[in-house]
């Protein structure tokens, strides 16, 4: 402190070594803090010290079909899965055309926007991906294409987790780019698949989001889709597709029977 | 330490004080660059004034993928008069919205047939500063020609690339000099005082109507 000079300090009698040490530590907070710190570090050694904890990825949550789950601002109830080569067959007001070289994989679901603002495209179109399927087209509508003179251009196939889908409103089959707050829709998540060779079971990975500010402009949004759940459900042809398949197999059976009949007559 | 031979505060901080002024100026200048970036160049701020009947020249440097080019156009306002509704592609006159009228702006334009001019814009300004632009989409697509100041059948090149220049040649080059009427839709009580013509803001021609 200012105003105190060496001359003001009174001469003190010499202390013992131990009392000097105690006085030294009690008089100065810094060494005491350091000693405390060393003690704390020493105490952590049996538990592995201050090393970075190993990041253990929690197992994927097993989700149930027919139960509502929350993904960021979106509530999603997956109902069932089916496939169809021409989902809007015979309808006059068509949004979806017959697949060339494949089929549409459709996940029926109910979606709700629970927050005060809209569920953006970045959430709605990244909440699920298919697993262990293979032969997926890049998007719902980029199947093979056929030109007027019959030339087929193959569509691009991608790894399962890159296959994107379209969310179509069941009421009018028109795609939803985003959904407004408070809104509820019955929808179909439509994927494109090359060929009609489907397994009996479909596994989906679901993704959750983090509400955080952008590091560029500070605007808040749901970002960083991260896989957090898994749902498995039976995969069947749609009702219309099943009828189509049944008719085709009946035709094949009739044809086989005719062939057999002819064969028999020829050998009689 | 004694106070007598110690330099004063001002002396000790001499350099700081000297540098403070340019630092302030620099900070203000840096902050004001946004005025140039977002405001000055985005709107009409540099008029070149003239009157009806007198030629006015607008020169600018523009950027195309092939580089920077200079172009120059000489515009003479010949008159502003009540106009007829322009014809649609089917040959019928366009419906005139209720509460509006057509004004015809007669321009004489002189420019190098090789320079792209179709980006030009024409507007009318009245005594209160209200500005009615030529907007080809006002009455829906396809009712008005897309550019107000080039002939529809010989618009000249749309850019500086070899293909764009060649395309203009096959269509037939734009005349070096031509008269053109610009049909302008304005509100009933709009009286034009100035005709504006520009290629790239902030420079524009401001021609007073006699």
């Amino acid at each position, binding site marked *: 402190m*200012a*105003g105190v000079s060496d001359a003001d300090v009174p001469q003190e009698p010499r202390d013992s070594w131990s009392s000097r040490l105690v006085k030294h530590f009690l008089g100065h907070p810094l060494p005491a803090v350091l000693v405390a710190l060393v003690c704390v570090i020493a105490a952590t050694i049996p538990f592995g010290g201050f090393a970075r904890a190993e990041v253990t990825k929690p197992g994927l949550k097993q989700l149930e079909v027919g139960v509502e789950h929350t993904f960021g601002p979106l509530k999603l109830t997956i109902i069932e899965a089916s496939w169809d080569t021409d989902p809007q067959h015979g309808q006059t*007001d068509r949004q979806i055309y017959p697949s060339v070289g494949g089929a549409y994989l459709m996940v029926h679901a109910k979606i709700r926007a629970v927050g*005060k*603002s*809209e569920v953006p495209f970045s959430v709605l179109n990244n909440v699920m991906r298919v697993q262990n399927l293979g032969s997926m087209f890049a998007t719902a509508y980029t199947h093979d294409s056929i030109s007027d003179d019959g030339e087929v251009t193959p569509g691009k196939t991608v790894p399962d987790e890159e296959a994107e889908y379209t969310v179509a*409103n069941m*009421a*009018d089959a*028109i795609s*939803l*780019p*985003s*959904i*407004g*707050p*408070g*809104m*509820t*829709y*019955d929808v179909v998540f439509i994927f494109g698949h090359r060929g009609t060779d489907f397994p009996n079971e479909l596994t989906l990975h679901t993704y959750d989001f983090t509400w955080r500010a952008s590091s560029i402009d500070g605007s808040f949004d749901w970002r960083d889709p991260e896989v957090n759940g898994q749902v498995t459900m039976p995969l069947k042809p749609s009702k219309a597709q099943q009828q189509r398949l049944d008719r085709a197999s009946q035709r094949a059976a009739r044809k086989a029977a005719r062939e057999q009949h002819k064969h028999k007559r020829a050998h009689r | 330490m004694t106070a007598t031979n110690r330099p004063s505060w001002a002396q000790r901080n001499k350099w700081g004080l000297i540098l403070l002024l340019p630092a302030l100026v620099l900070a203000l200048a840096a902050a004001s660059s946004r005025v140039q970036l977002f405001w000055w160049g985005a709107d009409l701020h540099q008029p070149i004034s003239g009157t009806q009947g007198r030629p006015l020249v607008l020169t600018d440097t523009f950027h195309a993928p092939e580089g920077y080019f200079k172009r120059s156009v000489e515009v003479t306002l010949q008159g502003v008069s009540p106009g007829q509704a322009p014809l649609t592609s089917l040959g019928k006159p366009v419906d005139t*919205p*209720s*509460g*509006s009228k057509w004004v015809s702006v007669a321009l004489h334009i002189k420019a190098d047939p090789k320079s792209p001019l179709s980006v030009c814009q024409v*507007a009318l300004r*009245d005594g209160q*500063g*209200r*500005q*009615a*632009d030529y*907007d080809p*989409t*006002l*009455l*829906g697509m396809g009712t008005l020609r897309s550019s107000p100041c080039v002939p529809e059948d010989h618009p000249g090149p749309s850019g500086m690339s070899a293909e764009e220049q060649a395309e203009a040649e096959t269509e037939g080059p734009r005349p070096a000099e031509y008269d053109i009427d610009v049909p302008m*839709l*304005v*509100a*009933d*009580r*709009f009286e034009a005082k100035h005709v504006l013509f520009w290629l790239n803001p902030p420079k524009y021609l401001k021609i007073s109507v006699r």
Partner: protein
Amino acid sequence: MSRRTLRTKALTGVVALAVVGIGQLLTSHLPDELTELRPFEAAGHIDESVDVRTGSVRVQTVNGGTSLRSPIAAMRTSNLWVVIAYTFTPSQTTTGLFSIEMVAANGMRWSGTASRNQNLCTSSVPGLPIQCQAAIEVPADYIIGAHLELAPTADLTQYDAVAVIDLEITPDVVADWKANPEVTLQGSTLGAS
């Protein structure tokens, strides 16, 4: 060390405290981020003309139903389609009205440009009205007491003028709309109605 240095030090301390105090006072009087971004709101009713910086807007009719017939497509919904007919008259420049939002009493917002919604309003010249229409899909459960916000520029109503129009939506109105099978959306037209 003299008494004088002690006094100087005390003075420095007081001045430093005073400066910090003044700074604190100033910051508390400056507008915070939310206030400075706040638009300039002008309240109005249906069929009342409201100024919005680039012109004036007048909401004429509001109608609702369970499907929308538009020049683009027929859209059905389990929610409600609301069609708003309004007039915009530019005052100084050639422009249109590009932002329209329905806002619920609880703060939910449905923009005329989001999702499948449409705001059909092109430009007009100063003094000449343009008849515009917007179709906005909304959940029937949340719209009682909702109002409309109309602003000149799209997506950026900060700092800008906003017309706040009371839509007078009562439970009876919602019931009527739920029973109405179709609303129609036409494009915008120039000229006084």
